[in-house]
């Protein structure tokens, strides 16, 4: 089975993340880049499927040159090879154009199964899996907390508010996974050393036949109009319980039209 995992480099959630004042895109130089945590579950799931069914795991990442660190981390976990889609023209792409670029690349490199994390911790749109499936014309099986493959059939448990749905389809397909699905392995030192020697193919948009006028900041369908720092948290209202705490709490909720 030919599995492709989409992996994104995001600013470390532990550091302060900023937008650039000039074009209102993410300031990727301001913070350390790390693997989008949710993608680690996708890599782990891909590796487990490969271990169970054989095949090959390819990491696909779109991002600036420094995203290679992230790619190496996924390779260190055990993926076999990587494709790095990197081009200045891609900077500022929104979800729609990103899905276009990734879909074109996927068509070029081929796949039986594409696995993604449920969202990225920076943009948090959570729509990429659905968009990719649409563009590739394959079934989409999103928010999986369990994936089973049997021959060319795939079944997942899709997490919902009320429990889970069982969703079945046939390969090729696009799957996104939630963090409950597994416990990502920590790369072994041997894995880290081996990752240095694994092939990483770097593609520019021309190599993947991506047209420049459909990607990048200028062609984005969505636009960041303005942004502001989150206001510091104001001190909360303290209700002192002098025997009438319950009444006061109810009055407070009523005043805010909660009850």
């Amino acid at each position, binding site marked *: 089975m030919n599995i492709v995992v989409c992996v994104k480099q995001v600013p470390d959630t532990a550091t302060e993340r900023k937008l650039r004042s000039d074009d209102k895109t993410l300031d990727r130089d301001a913070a350390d880049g790390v693997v989008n945590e949710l993608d680690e579950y996708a890599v782990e799931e891909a590796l487990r499927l490969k271990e169970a069914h054989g095949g090959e795991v390819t990491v696909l990442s779109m991002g600036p040159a420094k995203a290679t660190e992230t790619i190496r981390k996924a390779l260190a976990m055990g993926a076999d090879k990587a494709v790095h889609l990197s081009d200045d023209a891609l900077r500022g792409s929104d979800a729609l154009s990103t899905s276009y670029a990734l879909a074109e690349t996927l068509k070029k490199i081929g796949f039986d199964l594409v696995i993604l994390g449920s969202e990225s911790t920076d943009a948090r749109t959570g729509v990429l899996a659905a968009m990719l499936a649409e563009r590739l014309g394959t079934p989409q099986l999103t928010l999986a907390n369990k994936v089973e493959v049997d021959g060319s059939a795939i079944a997942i448990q899709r997490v919902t508010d009320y429990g889970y749905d069982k969703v079945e389809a046939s390969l090729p397909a696009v799957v996104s996974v939630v963090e409950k699905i597994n416990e990502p392995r*920590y*790369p072994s*030192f*041997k894995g880290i*050393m081996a990752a240095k020697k694994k092939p990483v193919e770097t593609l520019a948009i021309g190599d993947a036949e991506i047209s420049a006028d459909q990607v990048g900041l200028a062609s984005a369908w969505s636009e960041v109009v303005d942004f502001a720092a989150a206001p510091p948290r104001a001190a909360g209202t303290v209700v002192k319980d002098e025997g009438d705490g319950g009444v006061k709490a109810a009055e407070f909720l009523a005043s805010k039209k909660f009850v």
Partner: protein
Amino acid sequence: MTDYAKAREVAEQAREKEWARPSFGKQLFLGDFRLDLVHPAPRLSEQETEKGEEFLRALRSFLQDKVDPALIERTAVIPDEVIKGLVALGTFGMTIDEEYGGLGLSHTYYTRALQLTASYSPALSALLSAHQSIGVPQPVRLFGTPEQKRRFLPRCARGEISAFLLTEPDVGSDPARLATTAVREGDTYVIDGVKLWTTNGVVADLLVVMARTGSKISAFVVEADSPGITVERRNSFMGLRGIENGVTRFHQVRVPADNLIGREGQGLKIALTTLNTGRLSLPATCAGTAKWATKIAREWASERVQWGRPIGEHEAVAHKISFITCTAYALEAVVELAGRMADDERNDIRIEAALAKLYGSEMAWRVADELVQIRGGRGYETAESLHARGERGVPAEQMLRDLRINRIFEGSTEIMHLLIAREAVDAHLSVAGGLIDPKADLRAKGRAATKAGGFYAKWLPSLLAGPGQLPTSYSEFGALAHHLRYVERTSRKLARATFYGMSRWQGKLEHKQGFLSRIVDIGAELFAMTAVCVRAQEDAARLGRRPYEIADTFCDQARLRAEGLFARLWDNSDSRDVRLARLVLDGRYTFVEDGILDPSLDGPWIAPATPGPTEAEDVHRHVR
């Protein structure tokens, strides 16, 4: 034979007697300062350096991301997840060859990894070093058959945890009293006995067990799951709260004869040889803590203002900061030098490693104590309490507690003094042994005198003059050259003092522990000075004058300590102390104890270790 004589004989038999390779330490004690053996310090290949650096990066990010040292301290348990992560990273096979599934790291990077780990969580470094420096990997690597290596090393590298079981309730520094037995029955041995203070023993998969086969001691690899093994308790200590250290009972435990390491009777020699390089792991952890103490001392002493200035600007505190910083640099220099020499394999480093263990554990303890002092009341407060009331949770008191054991285990300071002193006087014993042997007859003494005469006729004059007297010697060390000249002169002075002590006390010298310990401690200072100068000269290429400044001050400090020791070689209260102590033991001065209340709980001083079936519940568990 008296018990003392037995103990001494057992120790003597376990000693490695051959010196196939040159030894800087041995020559130093003979007054022959062989700077050429340690300078320039051997370097690792570029490939090994790159691999080592990559590994340290991976280890550092693992520790940072996945390990909460405060949690280990609070719960007194290393979470299984942490152990599994360390296993996945390969840290259980750092020293195991790649051929057997390990990482095949150099000694240099193994010790650096322990240094890094210990600075963050000493309980974790204790886990790793007990597994690798004394547990199954090291003795099997050195003494195992190819078949044993294939059987055990890959398992250790994959993260099966190992422990080393020598100590018993009645056996600490003196293995001659070892009570655990291994009796051969066909192609198995049957082991009976009780082992105490088994670091990692509570969670171990594989054990190295020292047991008596007839009159001698042998070493076995034992599956921790074997029927008849019970981990009766998990002990708790002053520090290293996270370690899984227990009491393990063996009742008719059958072990395949194939699991004997080396030959019957080789057990202690195996243990000692294992420690030749294994001993570097403790000083590495000491260096790690000292380096951390330097960071905290600097940050705190510039932040805290009392009496109108940062406390670091009050002289009393300044002394401590200087001591901490210089000592941290020196401890690292000592471990690095010994580690690199171990990798290079051209020298015998058993004396250097032993000196590093002795010196590292003693000096790091003083460093941690001074750090607590600089931190004032906060030094005595736990990190958790500091943090809970809104301050930085600096675990100074924890580091002090965690470090304390280093002066006791893997050879207590007192035993290290004897061990090193034995090597220091070895050259003399081998040429003049018959002369001072109280039991040798006159003819033997006569023969010995002739043999010794030849040696001393050459050796004694060589102690009178050397490069240390020439103002131009070691000039490539610039401002540090005079310290090396001091080391050279002083090593000759040390050898003269040793020789004088030998002729004065002859066979009784071995009981002159005050004298011997000072000889050894002077040797340790001289070795540390050498290591620091060599290191500073190398570091200067990268760091400019700064390493020289530290090295210069460290050497000043070390010289003062050495001079103090020299003075006390001859002017001390040793014999009065011995006399008084004997009377104390006789109960002559119990009035000193008037007016107190002893809070100790009831019980015998030493628990009986009667062999037989267990009456306790097994607390052994696996981390899987």
